[in-house]
């Protein structure tokens, strides 16, 4: 886990293609077999190589992208929270709200109210780069983060990552 694992640049370039595809369509479903096909590697090889390359498992990466998009829509548009949930790839409003809160520490409606109250002039950074800079930094699984915040009491929390 510690130290640098050397990876073949040619493989990394193909893994990057899968990451780019998730960036371009984070609202879509990205099961491992689909991502592995983009990168031309086996499914087993893909998940491990992706995490080695980018520091997070592919599905957690996708989650951060969805939260990032949802945050931008909450902040910059008047689109309803229900529509934002479905536009950013969640299958239910409940899952969206819960995951959003787990990751950002506040509910979608609280974030919207706070951002809109504190609306300030955008700084002179290209908007596309700015949004990447504000990407949530998810260093642990959401379920794990949830457990830690609950004081490690309820280990029965779902083990699967959302989405």
């Amino acid at each position: 886990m510690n130290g640098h694992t050397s990876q073949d640049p040619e493989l990394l370039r193909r893994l990057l293609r899968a990451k780019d595809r998730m960036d371009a369509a984070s609202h879509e479903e990205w099961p491992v077999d689909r991502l592995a096909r983009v990168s031309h590697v086996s499914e087993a090889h893909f998940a491990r190589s992706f995490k080695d390359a980018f520091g997070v498992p592919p599905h957690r990466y996708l989650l951060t992208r969805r939260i990032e998009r949802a945050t931008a829509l909450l902040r910059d548009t008047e689109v309803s929270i229900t529509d934002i949930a479905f536009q950013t790839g969640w299958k239910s409003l409940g899952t969206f709200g819960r995951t959003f809160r787990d990751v950002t520490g506040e509910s979608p409606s609280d974030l919207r109210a706070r951002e809109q109250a504190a609306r300030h002039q955008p700084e002179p950074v290209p908007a596309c780069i700015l949004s990447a800079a504000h990407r949530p930094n998810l260093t642990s699984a959401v379920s794990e983060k949830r457990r830690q915040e609950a004081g490690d009491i309820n280990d029965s929390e779902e083990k699967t990552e959302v989405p």
Partner: protein
Amino acid sequence: MSQGVGVVGLYVRDQDEALQFYVEKLGFRVHTDAKNGGYRWLTVQHPDQPSFQLGLFTPGPPTVDAATAQTLRESVAKGAMPPLVLVVDDCRAAYEKMRARGVEFMQEPVDRYGSVDAGFRDPSGNGWKMIQARKAS
């Protein structure tokens, strides 16, 4: 202009491949292509920007040791190098033209409050934003 930034370099995995990409797909011109033993100083230029050269360099000895070169090649291939911005008059037209030439786009043109931007990568993994600025009112 007699003072200012003259060359900024990118690391690429293969200089021949990079040269072909920046010249044939992006429309840059070769400024300098000089070989000295195993070292190749290669720079290209945007046709509208004669005072600036974009260097296309491979990491390796003698400038960096072999282990550092490997790390740099990995960083480039993961898209971990700093952002690059290409300014264009018409982002959608440039997108169509470049896509037809086989440029790998990671983001289609998107409107953002009057400016339009798209994203593409060079064959090595360097990421570019292509931005059409908001019209001055």
